[in-house]
């Protein structure tokens, strides 16, 4: 244990001196080692009680900030700073644990609400949390040697977390990465580099991959899964661009198309113009993310960028086309995005003009985009609290509604106070955090369908905590740029980097990072806690590097990809121990591909998309619409199982005979075999078939099998068995079925049923986990 700093001892001494005034102090243990922090505190008291309950109020800016028991929120610091915060918290708890009142510890009396406590009863006396606190009270009054020897020995015996986990081999890892991030298979040069240099080759390969447009398509798609800005309601030109501030928003209605002689074509062109304009408006926030990442700009710009992305079409809507048109390469490209600063908004009357010291719109990355504000609108009663909630979730990784603790009678609390959110401690615990941020959005006080920018008549609400951030009030002079002020504070907050690393994990794995377990009575609590801690440690390590290297988001993806969490692939031996299984429960990417990813994978393997996982079919396959359905299905239902079967049948149908109709050198699936090679006709023929299967396994599944492997043998038997059945049932001699011989480059007869048997093989492979998951 590190020695305690001298200032810390002073704190303890001061506390002891003051203790007598407030209650009867227990006689503290003062022998050797009293300055060392008990690990029981960090692992048990803090993890299971302090961080979950006490710190909600007992912190600077919290409802109990004026009490004598003020803690530090360890989630807001990292490394040495967090160690120091933990030590200070330990000190505060230790002091409280040593104080007695009526013969009982004040710490326990406060927690159970048996003496005056602003937070009332936090723990029941028969709860696991109470037992932990009670243990802690006992421990602070005995020599550390009583607990230290046993616990240190226990820690030493714990095997490394990834002990016995088999990592993905480098070749498969490369395939996973290129398919995941760029929707393509690795090139031969990339395979060669990985074969030569192993994992060390990956950063260079990834740097190159991250210049590809396909990577940015995936990046935008991934971040939209989080921010959902594509799902903002209504026609974009109507909802994002208000009637009051953007008189040119319907520019396309008068756009000159008279050069198109045919009236029908002209009408179609007009429709296309409007469609692309609206789509481009919807796309701006995610294009901002692309711009930041593509140009290696600090990712903090997602909350601080003093620009937005516009296209030739959207620039017209904003009324700045003439000003910026010289910066575009192609004025007819509705999707060429460039960064620009908007001027401060001018309304139809002066009261609608936007305050601005600089004369520009106070852009604050995504926060101030019309799309983000429209996607998360407010109402008269919501008062921007929904915006504050998503702000915390999106940019600091904090779900403020998770803070909402159950109270004994919420209705009574609501009725008792005139303004419960200001007065009732049960409400204040959340609202003291949410309401100040809600106030920062105060100048965007227009409701859905009525625009975005606008001040509230009569000023902002006074029955809410005033505008600010985590205990700091918004200076009056910053009001006009309140969201920029928020963005600047956000960028400096250690939680920002962690939240972005968590977003990267979500994009790569399709699921959120683990949350700390809360069921203290769960017999597997310790294992679940360890799983959480290990992942959290990795997340924070990546976040630290992210911050140290100028917030380059590419580094975050690269760090995750080479981490054990992304590469974990199997077990060296079966994990039958329930405790070990609990530790490993979430390990491994094992992600069912989303509809868009399935289409890209089909295109990568077969050369063209299936093309049917769109619209309703995509929704049925667990996709999202970014509006009502915002979370992708993690597991396949029977309906999705049916779609997988359709996909396997249909893609195999389209691609098998088609591939045979290509020249051998141009084939993707069957470069080394022809339909006239029959199973069991000769050893050479069988060997050829097995080699073809090895190629198919690698192409479709990414599996590298030996010709004599059981997997190849199973596929061989499938192929040979079908050919044999066909002969027996006299189905030989026929052609491929009509639907499966369309679009061939040359006729492919199938006298021996081999083309259809190969089609069955492809169907079989496409239904497998290794194709449908990553």
């Amino acid at each position: 244990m590190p020695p305690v700093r001298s200032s810390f001892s002073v704190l303890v001494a001061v506390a002891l001196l003051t203790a007598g005034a407030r209650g009867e102090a227990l006689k503290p243990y003062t022998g050797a080692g009293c300055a060392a922090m008990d690990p029981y505190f960090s692992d048990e008291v803090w993890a299971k009680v302090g961080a979950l309950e006490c710190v909600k109020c007992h912190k600077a800016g919290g409802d109990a900030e004026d009490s004598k028991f003020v803690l530090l929120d360890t989630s807001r610091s990292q490394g040495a700073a967090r160690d120091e915060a933990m030590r200070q918290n330990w000190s505060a708890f230790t002091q409280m644990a040593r104080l007695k009142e009526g013969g009982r510890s004040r710490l326990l009396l406060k927690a159970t609400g048996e003496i005056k406590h602003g937070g009332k009863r936090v723990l029941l006396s028969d709860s696991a949390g109470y037992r932990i606190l009670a243990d802690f009270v006992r421990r602070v009054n005995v020599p550390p040697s009583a607990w230290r020897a046993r616990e240190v020995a226990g820690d030493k015996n714990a095997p490394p977390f990834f002990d016995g986990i088999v990592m993905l081999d480098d070749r498969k890892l490369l395939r996973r990465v290129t398919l995941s991030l760029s929707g393509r298979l690795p090139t031969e040069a990339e395979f060669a580099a990985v074969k030569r240099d192993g994992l060390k080759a990956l950063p260079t390969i990834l740097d190159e991959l991250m210049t590809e447009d396909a990577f940015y398509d995936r990046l935008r798609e991934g971040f939209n899964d989080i921010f959902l800005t594509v799902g903002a309601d209504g026609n974009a030109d109507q909802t994002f661009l208000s009637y009051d501030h953007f008189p040119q928003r319907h520019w396309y209605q008068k756009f000159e198309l008279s050069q198109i002689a045919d009236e029908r074509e002209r009408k179609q062109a007009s429709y296309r113009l409007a469609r692309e304009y609206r789509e481009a408006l919807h796309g701006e926030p995610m294009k901002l993310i692309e711009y930041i990442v593509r140009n290696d700009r600090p990712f903090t710009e997602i909350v601080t960028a003093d620009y937005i992305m516009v296209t030739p079409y959207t620039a017209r809507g904003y009324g700045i086309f003439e000003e910026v048109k010289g910066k575009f390469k192609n004025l007819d490209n509705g999707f060429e995005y460039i960064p620009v600063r908007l001027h401060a908004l001018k309304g139809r009357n002066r009261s609608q003009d936007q305050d601005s010291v600089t004369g520009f719109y106070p852009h604050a990355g995504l926060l101030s985009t019309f799309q983000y504000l429209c996607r998360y609108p407010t109402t008269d009663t919501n008062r921007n609290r929904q915006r504050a909630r998503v702000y915390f979730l999106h940019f600091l990784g904090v779900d403020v509604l998770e803070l909402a603790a159950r109270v004994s009678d919420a209705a009574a609390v609501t009725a008792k106070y005139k303004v419960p959110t200001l007065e009732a401690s049960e409400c204040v615990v959340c609202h003291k955090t949410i309401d100040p941020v809600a106030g920062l959005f105060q100048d965007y006080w227009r409701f859905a369908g009525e625009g975005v920018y606008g001040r509230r008549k009569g000023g902002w609400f006074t029955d809410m905590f005033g505008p600010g951030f985590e205990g700091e009030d918004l200076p009056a002079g910053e009001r006009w740029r309140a969201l920029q002020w928020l963005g600047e504070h956000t960028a400096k907050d250690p939680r920002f980097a962690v939240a972005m690393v968590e977003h990267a994990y979500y994009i790569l794995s399709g699921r959120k990072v683990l949350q700390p377990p809360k069921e203290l009575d769960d017999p597997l609590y310790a294992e679940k806690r360890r799983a959480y801690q290990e992942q959290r440690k990795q997340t924070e390590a990546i976040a630290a590097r992210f911050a140290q290297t100028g917030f380059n988001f590419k580094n975050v993806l690269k760090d995750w990809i080479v981490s054990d969490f992304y590469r974990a692939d199997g077990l060296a031996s079966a994990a039958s121990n329930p405790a070990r299984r609990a530790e490993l429960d979430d390990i491994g990417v094992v992600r069912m591909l989303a509809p868009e990813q399935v289409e890209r994978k089909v295109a990568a393997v077969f050369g063209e998309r299936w093309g049917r996982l769109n619209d309703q079919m995509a929704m049925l396959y667990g996709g999202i619409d970014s509006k009502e359905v915002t979370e992708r299905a993690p597991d396949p239902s029977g309906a999705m199982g049916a779609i997988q079967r359709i996909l396997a049948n249909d893609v195999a149908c389209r691609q098998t005979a088609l591939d045979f109709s290509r020249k051998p050198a141009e084939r993707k699936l069957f470069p080394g075999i022809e339909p006239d090679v029959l199973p069991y006709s000769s050893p050479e023929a069988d060997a050829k078939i097995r080699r073809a299967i090895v190629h198919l396994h690698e192409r479709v599944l990414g599996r590298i099998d030996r010709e004599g492997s059981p997997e190849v043998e199973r596929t061989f038997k499938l192929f040979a068995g079908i050919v044999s059945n066909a002969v027996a049932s006299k189905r030989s001699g026929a052609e491929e079925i009509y639907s499966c011989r369309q679009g061939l480059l040359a006729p492919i007869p199938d006298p021996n049923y081999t083309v259809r048997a190969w089609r069955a093989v492809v169907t079989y492979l496409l239904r497998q986990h290794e194709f449908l998951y990553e």
Partner: protein
Amino acid sequence: MNDARREFLKVCGLVGLGFACPGGLASLARAAVKEAPPYDGPFYIVFNASGGWDTTYLMDPKGIGGINRLYQEDDILTRGAHKFAPTAKHKTGGMSNEEFFAEFGGELLVVNGLDYSVNNHSPGARYMATGKLDSLAYPTFAALVAACKGPACPLSFLTFGNYSATGNIVAMARIPYLPSLKRIANADHIEGSERSPYHDDFALVRIEQALAGQRAARATQPLLPRLERAEGMLYAAQVNSKALQRVTPHIPASIPKERLAQQAEIALASFKAGVCVSANLSIGQFDSHANNDRDQMKLIPEFLEGIAYTIRRAEELKIREKLVVVVQSEMGRAPNYNGGNGKDHWSIGSVMFLGSRIRGNRVIGATDEKQFAVPLQPQTLACDRENGIRVRPEHVHEALRQFAGIADHPLSKKFPLGLADKDKLQGLWV
């Protein structure tokens, strides 16, 4: 349990769905191509009024203290044991309380004075759906009962909205459009046409056998728990999906226009086909902060009409006696109107039940004249201000688990509700 189902469960067990299986490869291959028999009920439907309903305009009328502007205490109506607000004159469509209680009051069990405990949509919805406030990991009741009762059903747990977490114990199925079911029901036929199979029968059988063999081989290898689970669910989804063919005969020729009726048709067709155990049906916009009476008078009748439609259609399909209906919302509305004629959130409300083995014409629990919950004696279900308990979602969920016969199922035990025996509601259903 018949042989096919038993063998199917064996396969699932080997591939990670959590069932014991001592079976061998040959039986796996056979089981893989067999279809599990239809699930025969009970069928669970959870109707959700998303946004927070005003219970004083439905099953817990007040008419005093300015709580309701559309009626007074004297206007409150009675039907059997039920008291309800008069809405026939105020509704703009849908079904009035008068009509609803006249038709279903005899079967209806109402629990008033339910303490949702929180005032926010998100935690409230989570709490009401799962019985657990402070965990994101718990499954909804609908998901839990589906996992316990019908793990082999292809659409075991259907959802059309509301909080729908599955706890990773069952796949969630979203079927937003009726016609889409038709499009996927015959997956091994081109464009779903029975006359145009992709593969000859012998080829298809061999594909299925190869997949079963592959799954069985994988199950003997040491796999990460997550991979083991995923491979099992994938295999089960594909095999089970064949049962979707049973749904199409029950899809009606015309699709209703009403929101709940559309959802109900999908759920009922799936129940009838034996491919579904439970369904979350939901309509939103109950969050009437701005104009409470107008909004609630539009939505409550729409909601009741949807429930009535579902029950009547279940009757037509001859599955009504197997239906278990839960009617809920994530919060109530405050006893006072705000400045905009709306009502803000309120943590006290109600829940209703109807269906097989539920004794109707009963009201359990109460709120007082100020719309506060009156504590309940869990053993007698009588109001008891002195010694009663506050009935919260976990009490309701514990009772639901008991009712469904899944309280002792290993999956339920994985998600304990933490109630002491003395606090469990006794005799709620009969």
